[in-house]
């Protein structure tokens, strides 16, 4: 009869399905996101207008202006998506924080009462 090999465990000793209910960490990152780190870039690109007249009438001016305009438009669109992403992430992180708070409370209550909910 052979002794079964124990399942490998992480170095920290926790099982793989262990989840730390670290609400403070989540709140800290939610605040980071809520500060909108992408806002500055979005504001700059949204405010950037390409005046084709500034390129003058020398040969190649309109083509260069067109390239810059196209790039700016595309960048604006993509930055808009990033803004939406960060907005969504902020909400998700807040929800995770709330879940962690609740899960931690439930776990603690269950441990105290011996009656899991």
């Amino acid at each position, binding site marked *: 009869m052979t002794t079964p090999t124990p399942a490998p465990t992480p170095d*920290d000793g*926790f099982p793989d*399905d*262990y*989840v*730390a209910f670290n609400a403070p*960490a*989540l709140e*800290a*990152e939610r605040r*980071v*996101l809520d500060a909108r*780190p*992408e806002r*500055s*870039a979005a504001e*700059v690109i949204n405010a*950037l207008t*390409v*005046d084709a*007249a*500034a*390129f*003058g*009438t*020398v*040969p*190649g*001016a309109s083509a*260069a202006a067109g*390239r*810059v305009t196209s*790039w700016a438009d*595309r*960048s604006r*669109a*993509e930055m*808009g*998506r*990033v803004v*939406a*992403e*960060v*907005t*969504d*992430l902020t*909400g*998700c*992180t807040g*929800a*995770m924080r709330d*879940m*962690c708070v*609740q*899960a931690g409370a*439930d*776990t603690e209550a*269950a441990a105290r009462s011996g009656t*899991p*909910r």
Partner: protein
Amino acid sequence: MAGSFAEARAQILSLQPATLRAKAGEVRRFGSASISAGTTLRASADRLGAQRGAPYQAYRERVSPTAGWLADLGRPTADTGTAIEGAAGAAERAQMVLAQQEEALARYAVNPSTTAAALAAAEAQALAVLNGAIGEVTSAYQGILPPPPTPAPVVAAGPGTSGTSAGSGTGLGGALGGAAAGLAAGLPNGGAERGSTGVDGAAAGGGAGGAVGAALGPTSGPFAGFVQDPTSGNLIDPATGRQADASGRFLDPITGEPFGPASPFVSRLEGLGGGVSPVGGLLGGVPGGLGAAPGAAPVAGAGGAGSFAGGAGFVPGGALPFLGAGGAAVGTGFGTAAGRGRGGSGSFAALYGGVVPPSLAGNNPAAAQLRQQAATNLSTMAGTAQRYTAIASGQAAPGAYLPPMAGGGAGIAGGGGSATRRGGRSGPRITEPASVWGAVGGGGSCPDRRRTPSRPTAEVEDDSVWSAGTTAPRSLDAC
């Protein structure tokens, strides 16, 4: 390629280098802000990703690509900004070249002995120079190749996109919900309630997995009001024509060298006689130099205007070829050379804070001629700087070029009438305060100092140069 001087001029005047430079700054700011945002998000992803549990890994997997995308914007955006800034610099240089050519043509045109044919030839050569400058702007424009940004690796639907991110927030929530359920499953009663409330359910939990994806010159300080030459970076006083280099040292009006220890130029100048202009030989091989005969030959020297400084340089003597015969008239026409001539090098010292430019410090047979040349160079420099200021500020005169110093000399001469014979100049002409020339007396009773007995005869120009002068050929009217 412009077919006429007027067309080339119009093209160069249409440039707005200041606006381009501002846009370049905005583009760069966008790049910097993107990098900053990317750095912040990546740090957040790493911090939370270091937590134990699948939800945190899901956070990192979702945020990291976006953070990387933002950070990766930095380099190409900075390159784009640099390219636009380079184009702005080329535009500035083109406008300075235009100012130089216009100033030179105007001075050449006012020379009584300039024929219409010679002026036409000069204009044709100026056109070639302008086309070269325009070509540089075009080349700079061709270098503006902003790479189209790749689609941002986001989960949430952004404006203008048809992203498939319904329930992106649930990716994390789902993962957490599942994890919480797993934890609760170890408890009596399964904890299904907790898991089921895991933020919109695990149905959208797959969202997490799918998420992997820009003055002209200083406005303050001792050189406030000076114009910066976009080619050399030197500062030029539009009022007097004085130049200073980037380190703040004045430049010798003859040699273009900053003041300092005795330079080889000085000794070479002192060893020359008065019969041959030493300026031509020193300033880039301009054949004839001061003594060149008017006509096509001096004009041909225009192409060498930049040879002294390299490129389309803006250096003393840059327009000297055009002044082959009319230089004396031009120099005094500015209304200041008379004062300098009488005062000798001391008047120049007053201009330069009490220091005599090295090339004018020597007492040699060519001293008078050098002072005359210095006055001419300063006048040319001032005129060019004024033209450049007007061009860069969008206030260039409507005509292609106008005869110089019609009104400029009058004000400086302290009311003297000698410099007022060509009134009616419409172009901008800034006049320096009389004090900068030191010896200029005020009041309208100031005698015509050109006839001061003590003045060396070598400095007294022919009266004919003060006559009515020639009018610009009709061909110029079309410009």
